[in-house]
């Protein structure tokens, strides 16, 4: 067992955990933050996406012990702060989710795109950035639409 200290959604956390525990299981099972989902557990689907020190990562491919001293933000964090409120609204308005299993990962990845999007970013750029996130039921068209709507809305002063 190893002791770690980290910040999760602004709150300081200290925990003693086994080394093999990955960050997504730590968030879900130890902190009750079940908005982070697990699909494949080998890096392919993106359902487990969280922000680690400001960058999106696969929660299933980071050990919780590797996050010692780091800042973690989950879908609960960006949702409660209102950071992605417009994006969530666009997802709902465009029916960009059915079961919602992929949605937390999609929203965090889309927000990452929106934060860093170059001035000439288009649908192809959105597709490219979201290409590592799988949706098994809605299909991608509505998701891309929702991200594009938010991109255009944020560009308008």
């Amino acid at each position, binding site marked *: 067992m190893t002791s770690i200290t980290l910040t999760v959604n602004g709150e300081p956390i200290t925990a003693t955990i086994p080394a093999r525990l990955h960050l997504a299981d730590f968030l879900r099972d130890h902190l009750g933050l079940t908005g982070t989902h697990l699909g494949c*557990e080998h890096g392919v689907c993106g359902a487990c*996406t969280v922000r680690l020190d400001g960058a999106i990562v*696969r929660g299933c*491919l*980071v050990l919780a*012990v590797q996050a010692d001293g780091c800042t973690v933000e989950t879908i609960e964090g960006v949702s409660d702060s209102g950071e992605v409120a417009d994006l969530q609204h666009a997802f709902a308005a465009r029916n960009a989710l059915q079961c919602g299993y992929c949605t937390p990962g999609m929203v965090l990845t889309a927000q990452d795109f929106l934060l860093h999007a170059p001035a000439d970013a288009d649908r192809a750029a959105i597709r490219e950035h979201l*290409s*590592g996130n799988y949706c098994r039921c809605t299909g991608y068209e509505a998701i891309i639409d929702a991200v594009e709507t938010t991109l255009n809305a944020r560009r308008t002063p």
Partner: protein
Amino acid sequence: MKAAAFDYIRPETLGAAITLLTRHGPDAKLIAGGQSLLPALNLRLSAPGLLIDIGRLAALRGITLADRTLHIGAGCTHAQVMTHPLIQRHAPLIARALADVAHPAIRARGTFGGSLANADPAAELPACALALDAVMHAQGPAGPRRIPAAEFFTALFETALAPDEVLTGVDIPIQGDTQWGFAELARRTGDYAMVGLAAVARPGTIRLGWFSVGQTAILAHRAAATLTEGGPLEAACTALADDLPAHDDPQASAAMRLHLARVLLRRVVGAWGGR
């Protein structure tokens, strides 16, 4: 699935990491970005007793330029390398290739050295290292040594690194008038390629580094010689049949792979003009 239990240690220095690696032998594994190792552990393809985390070692960080040589620390992440001004200016081939490596969330963690040490035959960076004539820096209990890229990738997922050596960084010679090109064919964005090419032309030499063509990334010597001597592009395409191993896998038959390799060679070298 979940990984089997293991111990974990994050040494403060490179020397301490090497000492631990030497002491624990084959039961220990280095972890850098973990983007190849953790999937393997989660799938229980591998179950080491100890992970030695080198992901935060300052000695493996940094990208510098000195004496016409670009040095890339093994611990730099794909994202850091891809966006670094020195890489974009002096080794645009690497920045371009990294855009096809996995996805942003994986590039944020995966490291330059981890990809080379992992020696996946379908990975982009080993082929770039061959095409750029890179030199690997390794450090073990006996001290540092250098290994030319052409001697580094020895077999499927195997390198010239000794079990107790750490890859610390990579030197890339920078030369004027360099032409370069990169192309790969993958079924979906971010997937490993069915076949791919990293090509570099320097005064007097052309190097064609191929990936997803067999057990390791390889240089196509005959096709490159044909081009270096000023031969026609089609002659180089013909020579590729002798350079590339006949490699069948579920992604592509050997005949299809050779056909696709020729398509890529025409695209990349054709864009240089003059042939």
